[in-house]
């Protein structure tokens, strides 16, 4: 088994548990913890050699962070 | 081979220092050491002209990230006082 695959799965599990049960129940903490499984998924995709998937995922993960931040600011203001 | 091993060792040492340091702003120089070591390791792993571009992109991105973190920390501190 490729080391990228094992490390990616480890990151996915750590990040998912951390963003489901954060220390401070705060949307900012959850948002930062959500970055960890994103990188884990990138490593898992890397172990399957999918270049187009890597590109798309890199773009979408930054875009989704931006959308989450905007949505939460709107909800805080309302 | 010894060059790559030395780069990786320095990166691992600096990563440990980043996590163990208590003060937020004094973590950033260690993060800078990490990005130097990783940018060197990228070129040592793949000796290809595109690797220089990739290492420069990684280095500039990491520097921009530390710059943004430090500036926001300084601005946020002033706003609180």
């Amino acid at each position, binding site marked *: 088994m490729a080391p990228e695959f094992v490390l990616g799965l480890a990151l996915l599990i750590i990040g998912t548990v951390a963003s489901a049960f954060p220390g401070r129940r705060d949307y900012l903490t959850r948002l930062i913890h959500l970055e960890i499984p994103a990188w884990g998924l990138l490593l898992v995709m890397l172990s399957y050699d999918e270049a187009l998937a890597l590109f798309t995922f890199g773009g979408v993960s930054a875009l989704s962070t931006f959308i989450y931040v905007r949505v939460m600011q709107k909800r805080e203001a309302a | 081979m010894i060059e790559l091993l030395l780069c990786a060792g320095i990166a691992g040492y600096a990563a440990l220092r980043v996590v163990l340091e208590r003060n937020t702003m004094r973590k950033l120089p260690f993060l800078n050491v990490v990005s*130097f070591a990783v940018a060197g390791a990228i070129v040592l792993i793949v000796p290809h002209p595109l690797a220089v*571009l990739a290492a420069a992109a990684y*280095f500039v991105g990491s520097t921009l990230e530390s710059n943004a973190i430090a500036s926001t920390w300084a601005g946020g501190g002033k706003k609180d006082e």
Partner: protein
Amino acid sequence: MPSELLEIPLAAVVCWVNFVTIDLFFGLPREGGVSGATAIAQEVEAGGGDLKGGTMMGNIVSSPDASAGTLLASCGVAVAGVPGGLFAALLVYIGNRICYDPGYAGTTGAVTATFIVYAFTLAGFSATSFIVGMVVAILTIQGLSHRHASRLLGRLWKWRT
């Protein structure tokens, strides 16, 4: 193997002298370029260091200066000779512009490092040992002890003015 073990410390010393000289020449310890560099300097001073040396460390952190130029230029020389080094200098200039910096120190450091590393490769050194040498050099400044490194840089700055 013994030649490599001798090459890397020598390359580290050459890189250290190159980037510290150029950073001091362009006056990086004088003031923080951005507010983040000033914040790092104040925290280093609070930890028992020197304010001027801390300012230089903060400037190294928050924009690519001569140390980044030396690293990327030696990478370029290792991969593609002198044109690679000059290409790396262009990349450092672009990176400096992204980080709101005039970019004189980084570009000058990259250009001088290109020719220094090229001269050493003519003398039989391998350019990859300069990459590791620069990593070791930045480790001595930023990575071992902030207190002692900032005091050393502050003493060098006082000696220069």
